[in-house]
């Protein structure tokens, strides 16, 4: 099935995470191949936790090792924190969108915010000696460490980050900026 477009179009679209718990994804109670779900969430820590928990639950339904499920969930948490905290700054008028897609050979997660945008200058190298003891600035680094592909795209306004984890492949993280 790899390479085909998603066919479960009726399952696509945005919904509230509260209204669409993981168990409602697919009648088979599984995150089957070629499915995509998308949620629009408030800019709260509760949304961060829900995005993380959903990521872990969906990854567990795919053939990932337990450690990879944990890494995917942690990457999603870090990206969601960036969206809610640094992007939307907890603004109740701004939303975070999180989508999960099982392409058959990968899990593709997109997280976007409506904030001021993430610029290169905003992402210092946390491994540089002068940054090693800083309290913050490790989120994007951890995301890159845990996922196979990371893409950051500027929106008008906001930022979209795409996280990809391939099934059965210990890939090296690559990054593209658009």
């Amino acid at each position: 099935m790899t390479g085909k477009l998603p066919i479960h179009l009726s399952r696509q679209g945005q919904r509230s995470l509260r209204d669409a718990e993981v168990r409602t994804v697919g009648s088979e109670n599984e995150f089957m191949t070629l499915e995509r779900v998308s949620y629009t969430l408030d800019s709260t820590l509760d949304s961060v936790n829900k995005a993380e928990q959903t990521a872990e639950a969906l990854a567990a339904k795919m053939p990932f090792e337990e450690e990879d499920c944990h890494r995917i969930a942690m990457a999603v948490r870090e990206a969601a924190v960036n969206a809610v905290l640094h992007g939307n700054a907890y603004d109740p008028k701004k939303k975070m969108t999180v989508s999960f897609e099982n392409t058959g050979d990968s899990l593709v997660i997109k997280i976007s915010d409506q904030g001021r945008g993430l610029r290169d200058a905003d992402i210092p190298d946390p491994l540089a000696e002068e940054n090693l003891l800083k309290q913050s600035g490790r989120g994007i680094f951890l995301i890159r460490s845990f996922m196979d592909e990371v893409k950051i795209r500027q929106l008008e306004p906001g930022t979209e980050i795409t996280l990809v984890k391939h099934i059965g492949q210990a890939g090296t993280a690559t990054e593209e900026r658009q």
Partner: protein
Amino acid sequence: MKASSRRVDGVTILDLSGRITLGEGSVVLRDQIRDLLGKSEKKILLNLGDVTYIDSSGIGELVSAFTTVRNQGGELKLLNLTKKVHDLLQITKLYTVFDVKDDEASAVKAFAR
């Protein structure tokens, strides 16, 4: 996250359990460290054996605790890292920054007298 402290040979051992994440354990840890320093308890051993999860905010809080204690003339060491926490400190290059121990008795003895 839950935290409780006990004293062993002049060292305060802070037993932490649960998650050290943004909005959960990070603030608890910060308050605990502040309270200990306020009582001039500056030899602090953080027992992370029951910590199940740390995110980047939690890592930042550990770093902040380390530097805050050091800046006040104290010492902070880590005890009983789980594999997940160990791996996180490795990839963030913090494993060599912290003094990490895996045995409580020897960790207590390692503090300056």
